[in-house]
């Protein structure tokens, strides 16, 4: 019975690793400038964790195989090196692994969070709410009109609570339900939520950031490939959470300009 267990454990370990090695299930291909850092970090961690995983399981399996159901006469032996050896081993192995991962991790993290957006980054505002994202472009004047929460009304599609009669800045603001951005142009995303906690997750862009009620959060990224990608919510926000999504269209500068014109006429 012990030997069967040993085999089972080792088999399970190897089988579990197969889909990872074969890349059977992978995240959408990365289309961002910073994404490769995260992917490399992921790959590196996958290797180290994978080795730890297989080593642990196989060692466990081997010892179970060797020492289960031994003859009653057998004498108890101690693992060479004893506990101290193992403890020191653990500190060395995991310690170095931790340091390595930690240091590299900081690099990727700071790339995303500690660098300010470039001066020419395009400001786009995103508002999360049950259960949709809406986006606002400042229009020709480059200014976002002020938001009046008491004016927000989805029935009349005044989604941002703009007062276009009194705020000149809001007159030319463009509100859209899908997000379009020019390719290879840094985007400075200004995030706020109108009701609850939500999250802005674009797997293809390797970005995820929560909307925090009462806080204005911001995020900046650059898309490197044109195409249509999905923005989804990852923060449980109510019954429609699963269907809280929007499309992100990455276009050439020209297409983007015409798209923006088109949207302007729909206001």
């Amino acid at each position: 019975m012990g030997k069967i267990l040993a085999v089972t454990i080792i088999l399970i370990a190897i089988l579990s690793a197969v889909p990872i090695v074969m890349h059977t299930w992978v995240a959408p291909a990365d289309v961002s400038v910073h994404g490769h850092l995260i992917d490399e970090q992921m790959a590196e961690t996958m290797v180290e964790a994978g080795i730890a995983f297989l080593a642990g399981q196989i060692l466990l399996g081997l010892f179970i195989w060797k020492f289960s159901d031994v003859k009653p006469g057998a004498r108890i032996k101690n693992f060479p090196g004893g506990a101290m050896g193992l403890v020191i081993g653990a500190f060395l192995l995991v310690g170095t692994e931790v340091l390595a991962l930690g240091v590299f991790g900081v690099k990727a993290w700071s790339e995303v969070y500690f660098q300010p957006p470039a001066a020419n980054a395009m400001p786009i505002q995103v508002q999360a709410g049950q259960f949709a994202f809406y986006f606002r472009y400042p229009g020709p004047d480059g200014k976002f009109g002020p938001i009046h929460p008491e004016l927000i009304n989805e029935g009349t599609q005044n989604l941002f609570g703009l007062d276009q009669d009194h705020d000149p800045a809001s007159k030319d603001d463009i509100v859209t339900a899908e997000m379009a951005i020019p390719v290879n142009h840094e985007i400075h995303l200004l995030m706020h939520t109108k009701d609850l906690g939500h999250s802005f997750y674009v797997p293809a862009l390797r970005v995820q950031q929560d909307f925090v009620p009462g806080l204005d959060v911001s995020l900046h990224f650059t898309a490197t490939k044109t195409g249509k990608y999905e923005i989804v919510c990852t923060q449980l926000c109510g019954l429609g959470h699963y269907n809280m999504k929007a499309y992100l269209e990455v276009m050439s500068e020209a297409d983007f300009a015409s798209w923006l014109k088109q949207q302007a006429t729909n206001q």
Partner: protein
Amino acid sequence: MKSLYKSAAILAVLVVVALGLLSTGVHVNAAAEGKVSGTIKLEGTAPHMRPIDMSKDPTCAKQHPTPARLENVVTGPSGGLANVVVYISQGLPASAAAIVPSKPIVWDQKGCMYQPHVAGMDVGQQLQVVNSDPTTHNIHPLPQMGGGNIGWNKSQPQGSPPFNTSWKSEEVAIPVKCNIHPWMHGYMVVVKGPYGVSDTSGSFTLDNVPPGTYTLTAWHETYGTQTQKVTVAAGKPATASFTFKAK
């Protein structure tokens, strides 16, 4: 002694029958009563109704080759104003107000829009909520707090059966929304007695109006309410028309 009982019994029977006749009589007459009809016009140019971007839920967008537009102001070619609810706000005898149409009001969710966008209904009239879309909707009416009506918020997965409900008291008007599709928005106007909802030509009809003088009220989600007196004589239908001014 005995005969006394007998006569008492007969008397009682007579009274019951008479009452019965009376009450049914009201119905019979009411049914025969005239109606109030008319048209509702919008003066000036209707505001621009922006198209709705349904890209969030492709199953919705697919159903609209040309994007659907908002329905806050819907006018016909002849300048008729649709989605106006006309009802009797004063002067209706309790007996007539008590009549509840047996025909249920159907509130359909089709193409991720509410059909109708504005529904009039009688207090206690059966309201049937239908989901004809290949997607899940949640129906979320928001009556006034403490107004006698209690709000609810129910999801209707695709293919799940219609459900029936009704409103307990008058309310003009209860906004209805779908949170999963934030653009879905409509109104339920709950009144006592006859009511009519104008179509795109602006015409409306109130049936079963007993003779008398009443105050008619016309309600529109954007342009508010207008009232006017109308007198209904036995036999011939009265007419009333309203004109709203575009802001």
